[in-house]
Structure formats: structure tokens, C-alpha cells
């Protein structure tokens, strides 16, 4: 049986998520044995032409050129999985969605006329059909392996759409919001990080974006009660997943 092929494509992003693949040190050889890495410029100069069985897409769409390029990537991909907050929600660069891009250009670049950019940073799914979205800034490598393994063996990835709280409790991590009064985004945030921050006595920053149907309004109310001010509440919803509709809408309420 022909080995299935894997491709990795990058759009507007920091490369951290695709490097999670190389970070799978212990599993890397098994991975290379199980799937043919056909297009992964960060890892190898040997690049095969498509179509590909599984394509991982990192990054958001911020230019007209990329908005076209993603259509070609989609056309070459049997299964397309987006990885990371940029690809699934527009990333930190989606902060431009709340500002005047032309003004930014004039302040940041000596020759703004050299820059061709869109006014917004958007997720891959807002341009093409996506088969699965893997959240996180960065993604969790165990979850990435779960997605690839599940793809190879035709099963649904064991990745749940539930709040971080569920995993905090399963991991016996004491709630930092209730026991220490820390303003935490966990109740509205999609789990997947392995409760990285609460495990280290820090509140959740929402790196994995909103859980489906997150009640951000009730959470914001609680953040106010815990002493956070309007500007702070606006900003906690405006980080790596600022462009995710649930967080974007909530942050706009506190402008």
C-alpha cells in the first residue's frame, strides 16, 4: 500500500506550530515511517508536487496573494487541517481587524507603498473548506500527533470541544479563579493545552480560543467583579484569538 503523503503550508504566522511537528522528537522516526513527508520546506528541501493526502496549514490570510494561494492548496489537498490560532482565528495579527491598517502602515514602514496587505487577518476556514481545526498558540504536539494518527487510521481525533475547566478538574488542578481570585479565561476557553498555566499557578490566557457557545458575557461580568477594569477585559479577549468571533464580539463590548 502506498504511504499517505503529508504537506505543510505556511501563511501569515510565526512558524511555531509547524515546528511542533519537528518537536515530536520521540515520535518523529515513527511518524516519518508512517507517512511520507512530501512538502515541508521547514524540514526538507525535497519537495514533491501535490496532490497530498493530508495537508497541515499554518497561518492566517492577510494578503490578496495568500487569499488566492490557499485556494490552490485546498485544491491539492484531500484532507486539509488548519493548525494554530493564526490559521483557526487569524492569530495575534487579527488585532488589525480592530484598527486602521493604513494608519499602521504609515507608522511602521518607511515606504508603505511597498506593502500590499488586506485590512484584516482572517482564518483559513473563512476562505476555503477546512476538514479539521486544531487550536492553540502554539498547538499541542500531542494533539497534533493525535490528529495525524487518527487520519492515518481513519478514526475521529480524540480532541474535545469543552472548556479548559473540565481538564483542570480531571488533572486535579485547584481552580485559580475560585481559590485565588485570578481573572481566568479557562471557563470560556477550548481545552487542549494540557492545562499548562493553571498547573503553574497562572490563569488561562485563552491561547486555544473560545469553546463553542462560550458564555463570554457572564465571564466578563465575573472578571469585573474580580477587579479587572474595562480596558483589561477588552484586552484579555484580544490576544492570540482576537479574531475568533466569540472573543472579538466580547472585546468590542468593552471598547
Amino acid at each position, binding site marked *: 500500500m502506498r504511504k499517505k503523503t503529508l504537506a505543510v503550508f505556511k501563511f501569515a504566522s510565526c512558524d511555531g506550530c509547524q515546528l511542533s511537528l519537528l518537536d515530536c522528537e520521540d515520535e518523529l522516526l515513527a511518524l516519518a515511517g508512517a507517512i511520507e513527508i512530501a512538502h515541508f520546506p521547514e524540514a526538507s528541501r525535497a519537495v514533491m508536487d501535490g496532490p497530498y493526502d493530508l495537508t497541515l496549514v499554518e497561518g492566517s490570510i492577510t494578503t490578496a496573494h495568500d487569499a488566492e494561494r490557499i485556494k490552490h492548496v485546498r485544491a491539492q489537498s484531500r484532507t486539509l487541517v488548519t493548525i494554530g490560532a493564526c490559521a483557526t482565528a487569524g492569530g495575534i495579527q487579527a488585532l488589525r481587524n480592530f484598527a486602521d491598517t493604513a494608519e499602521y502602515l504609515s507608522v511602521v514602514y518607511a515606504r508603505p507603498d511597498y506593502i500590499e496587505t488586506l485590512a484584516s487577518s482572517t482564518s483559513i476556514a473563512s476562505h476555503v473548506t477546512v476538514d479539521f481545526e486544531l487550536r492553540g498558540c502554539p498547538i499541542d504536539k500531542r494533539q497534533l500527533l493525535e490528529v*495525524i494518527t487518527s487520519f492515518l*487510521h481513519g478514526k475521529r481525533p480524540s480532541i474535545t470541544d*469543552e472548556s479548559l475547566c473540565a481538564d483542570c*478538574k480531571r*488533572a486535579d488542578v485547584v481552580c485559580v479563579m475560585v481559590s485565588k481570585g485570578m481573572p481566568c479565561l*479557562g471557563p*470560556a476557553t477550548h481545552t487542549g493545552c494540557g492545562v499548562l498555566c493553571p498547573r503553574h499557578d497562572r490563569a488561562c490566557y485563552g491561547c486555544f480560543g473560545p469553546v463553542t*457557545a462560550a458564555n463570554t458575557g*457572564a*465571564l466578563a461580568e465575573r472578571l469585573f467583579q474580580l477587579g479587572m477594569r474595562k480596558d483589561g477585559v477588552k484586552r484579555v479577549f484580544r490576544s492570540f484569538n482576537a479574531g475568533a468571533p466569540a472573543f472579538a464580539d466580547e472585546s468590542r463590548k468593552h471598547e
Partner: protein
Amino acid sequence: MPETGHDHADSIDTPSVLSAAHFGALLQAIRNEGYTLVGPTVRDGAIIYDEIESTQDLPIGWTDEQEAGHYRLKRRDDFAYFGYVVGPQSWKKFLLPARRRLWSSVRREDGGFTIEPEPLPERRLAFIGVRACELAAIRTQDRVLMEGSFQDPYYRAARQGAFVVAVNCVSAAPTCFCASMNTGPKVSGGDLALTEVVSPERHYFLVSPQTARGQAVLQRVEHRAASDEEQDEALTHEARAVSQMRRKLDTEGLPELIAAAQGSAHWQRVAERCLACTNCTMVCPTCFCSTVEDTVDLSGQRAERHRKLDSCFNREFTYLHTGSVRESGAARYRQWLTHKLSTWHAQFDSSGCVGCGRCITWCPVGIDITEEAAALREAVDQS
């Protein structure tokens, strides 16, 4: 008859006095029976349950301050061993762990596969410091997981192997309402039932063996018969828990009332505050719902099935081919409260709530089951 020593012939209903100094010997005597001790200990700003070695691991001199959505660890002005109420965890952590492998399968050379069943837990645990509400919760889970049509062999093995040292509450948190649920604060059951008495003059435990094996363990530790005064002092301590209890849940006709309230507009009002974050169900000592998760390795040679605790607050919990059955937050909160306070009776012959107050304390936005039940009662009465 000697007042102390190993040959003191207690009867099961005569309480004994165990000095605090000999509490460590009691723990050791339980260990000598082959039990691993699990009990309260301070970690990460809370009193949690974990393996303990000795008295020194207990939350000596600590207490908990609780309110809706609020928990703080506080210093006491004495050295009580059990001077707190309940923390975020319950004994469910050991009896029904959040995650358990159910079986593994390995692919054979002939293309088939071999199932490897998951062995039953062998470790026998001694639960040190089980509260009345927690004993009631364990009995509630017994009915669900050992006495119903579905039998959980892992739960049964862990449960039947366990030795239970129950400790009476001598204070109540503002979130407690066990008295109105008829589950406490006085313990009944376990292997040993203790009341801790701490005063400037003395520090002792009034011990009542509840079973023959509890009696046998006590015999190995230095103790003596309790005087009338010591028994009275313990009763005064226990009475404090009752008098401090502020919250209550009116259970009169409650199952029928909740059933009648299914169409109430109140569910939507709760849903506006509810984060559907699952905290209430995860900390609840009786909530038992789970899901299964399948994993496979990259080579496809080995697969595993795990059971993990799930929650009716998760949309995926009722996910069917057309979507989630309980899509709205209101539907999910209604499901939880209805099962807990109403349909649980028909299904398992008791309430699903023991009044421990964990869901109130550990709700990040402080939603209070007693308030919501009262509001529903009012809504039904007015309609």
C-alpha cells in the same frame, strides 16, 4: 478493667478517646493492615485529597473559607487536624478516577487482534477524614455503580477494598446544606467514626468503631473509654456544625416540583450566568457521567479505550448525528439540576445531591443550587 491498653474490651457502641498524640499510631495501624492512606493535605492553596504518610501530612491548623465562587485557605488559631469542611476534591477521585483505561488491543501477525483487559485495582485504600456528606455521596455512587443494572467492576473493586475513617464536622461552611438533605453533619457508617475535640486544654478524638474491622484496628492503638464529660464535649462540637449551617434546600415535593418546572423561563435566566464550564459536575461527589475515548499508536499496532469523566454541560455529551441534543445552556443546566434533584429519585431511589456545597463554591460565577431550586419553586408556585 484497665483504662488503656490493647485488651480494653470496647463494645461497638461505646465511644473511646484517642489522644491527638496517638493519631499517628492509628494511621500506622491502618497501614499495617495493608492499606495505602489517602487523606486531606494542603496543596496549591486548597485542602485536597492525596496519599499521606503520617499526621504531619494533614492540614494541621488550616481551614477553608468558602462562599459562592470563593475559596480561601486560612490559618486557624489552633492545631486541629480536620479543622476544615470540604475541598474541591471528593473520594470520587479514587473510586471513580477522571480517566481509566478499559482495555488495550494489540494487532497479531495473522491480521487479527488480541484484547488485553485492564486489571482491577489491587491497591486497597484507607480514606482518612470522610465527612458525613461524603459518606452519603459514596453510598449514592454505590447505588449507581454497584447496585443498578450497570455494574462497574473497577468501582466495586476500589470501593470494597476501602477502609473508611469518617470524621464528624464540627463547623459548617456557609455553602453547606447537608442538614436539609438529611445526609449530615453527623456521620453514620464507615469503619471508624471520629469527632475531633480541640480546646486550649486538650486535643483528642472521640472514636466510635462502626465495623468489626474498625474495632480491630482501634484495638491496636492506645485508647481508653470516654468519660461522660468527653462525650458531652464532642457533642457540643458536633452541634456547632448544625447551628452554623446557613443554607438549606427545601426538599418537600422537590422531584415533582422540578418536573413541573421544565417549561419555566427561569432556566434561561440561569443560563445567562452559567458558563457551562463543567466545574459543578466535576466537583460533585455523585456526578458519574463518562465518555469513552479511543487512541491508537502511529503504527496502528496498538489501540486503547479509555473512559473519562464527562459532563452534561458539554455540548458534545449529547452529540448525535444531527448535532447536540441539548444545544442551549438553558437545556444543559436544566438537565443537570433535573437529574440531580428530580429524576435521580426515580432512577436510584434517592436525591443525587448530598448538600456538600462544592458546586456552589467551585462555580466560577457562584451559581447556587439552593437559590436556583428556591427560585424554581417560586416560579412554579406563581404559575
